[in-house]
């Protein structure tokens, strides 16, 4: 665990799509898939990112360009440094023995990438608005795509596609990350079909280690008890699918995009 930001040099950059870049750097942190780190740009800000690639001492984060901070990350060149601390959060409870499906909406697929690396027999669904937003096409050659505009794969949402697939093939577990409305519907679907499900929540992260309360979701700290929650946990969390806190602590509709665009791509309407 690195408590104070350690400056690491970016040693490789991969353009995953026009809006997503993966930045690689050396670090010997030990990760459980689904955990996250806090990334610091001195004098600017510090924000949470999942580690999307773990290769020995080489770690990668996949960043969707969305606002000031992620824009600055996209401007980083090889040799530039960023500060990292972590890992934080609980990570997914991986059950390699189960037939599983991984469902990523938008940049949510980044949180699932190391899950995919780890589990032997899985079905992978990646959903975006349009074909150009799909990432990791070379990394994972056996993905099922769905796009809102139908420009690649299934036309519609990941929820629709999952529902389709589930009719033919019974999964024992679903791992998902993406817009909360999407995840909410996937959880409903899993409940209906008695499939175990783990979702990785997105809440405003401030301290990252459980002290500030900013990342609250119905009494659960996203940064400590989460970001990954199971269905039994979510059943007790009223705010799931409904409410998130702004930076001030104000409660807002988690699906209201003017206020809170945690994930810019919402294909789960």
């Amino acid at each position, binding site marked *: 665990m690195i*408590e*104070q*930001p*350690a*400056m690491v040099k970016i040693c490789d950059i991969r353009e995953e799509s026009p809006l997503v870049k993966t930045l690689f750097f050396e670090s010997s942190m030990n990760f459980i898939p689904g955990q996250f780190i*806090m990334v*610091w740009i*001195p*004098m*600017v*800000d*510090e*924000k949470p990112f999942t580690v999307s690639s773990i290769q020995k001492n080489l770690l990668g984060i996949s960043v969707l360009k969305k606002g000031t901070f992620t824009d600055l990350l996209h401007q980083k060149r090889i040799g530039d*440094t960023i*500060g990292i601390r972590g890992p934080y959060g609980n990570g997914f409870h991986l059950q390699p023995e189960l037939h599983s499906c991984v469902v990523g909406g938008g940049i949510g697929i980044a949180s699932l990438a190391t899950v995919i690396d780890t589990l032997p027999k899985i079905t992978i669904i990646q959903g975006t608005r349009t074909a150009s937003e799909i990432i990791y096409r070379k990394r994972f050659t056996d993905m099922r795509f769905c796009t809102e505009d139908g420009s690649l794969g299934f036309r519609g949402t990941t929820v629709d596609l999952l529902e389709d697939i589930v009719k033919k093939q019974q999964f024992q577990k679903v791992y998902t990350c993406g817009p909360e409305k999407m995840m909410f519907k996937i959880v409903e679907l899993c409940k209906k079909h008695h499939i175990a499900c783990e979702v990785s929540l997105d809440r405003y992260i*401030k*301290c990252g*280690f*459980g*002290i*500030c*309360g*900013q990342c*609250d979701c*119905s*009494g*659960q*700290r996203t940064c*400590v008890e989460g970001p990954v929650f199971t269905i039994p946990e979510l059943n007790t969390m009223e*705010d799931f699918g409904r409410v998130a*806190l*702004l*930076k*001030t*602590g*104000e*409660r807002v509709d988690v699906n209201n995009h003017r206020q809170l665009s945690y994930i810019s791509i919402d294909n789960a309407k």
Partner: protein
Amino acid sequence: MSKLNLSVRVGNIQLRNPTILASGILGVTKALLKRVAENGAGAVTTKSMSKEPREGHKNPTVITFEAGMLNAVGYSNPGIEKAAREFADIQDVGVPAIASVIGTHKEDFVRVVEGLSGTHFSAIEIPLSCPHTPGFGLLAGQGTPQATFEITSAVRKVTELPLFIKLSPSIPEISTIAKAAEDAGANAITAVNSMGPGMIINIEAQKPILDYKVGGVTGDALRPIATRCVYDLYEAINIPIIGTGGVSTGRHAIEMMMAGASAVGIGTGVYYRGIDVFKKICEEISQWMRENSISDINTIKGAAHD
């Protein structure tokens, strides 16, 4: 040995045990306060609330170092209107809840306290002591006997709830200020807020780590200073003291109480030992009481004095 008594009184509030969640730690939502209560706290304090909403400082706002923690959160809060809604049914928490109220001018404090009228808080806490937020606490000149007296008096007029004034360890003569609060009608002193401010520089980045550059120091580093403040206050004032600063074990809590505290605030301890730090501390206190044949925790209050 007869049953142990861990319950204490602060002003007219009865707590099942002396551990109180300190302000600014987790107290953003009622749900989290409830969870802290379920984890054993005797009382809980909300994040400080101001008249208007505040985003606070940019991140990093909280970092740890080998001797404690440095924070400059900058009093982020949704403003009293929305906060009052969040905490409307605060009695659901199940233990006494303390509302932390901040402001720049004394009228602000009054407005915030008035804004809480529909809620069921058990007490109001007023920090006049933040070392790192422009417009508040020390940076608004609130760390003087006069300002303390004025603000306390103003709030005293608009609420019947017990009033706790929270002081800084980083001003000389904490007793003088505490006396001003007592004279103005405060029912308890919370001692202390974070100290400093301090700074930690990342030498590779060649920049202070906190975005606000400086922040208040809490945790182990603060404990001896907080203990001394409580010890001094115990000899200077007659109202109870909530000893706060670096308490993360039962031994620390006992130390604070021997210095003169009626109850202890716990903040950084949540980081050191987890959200169940309250339960752990109470168990450790109980065990120590058993080993030392003490049946009522109140008997150790002030024991370190001559």
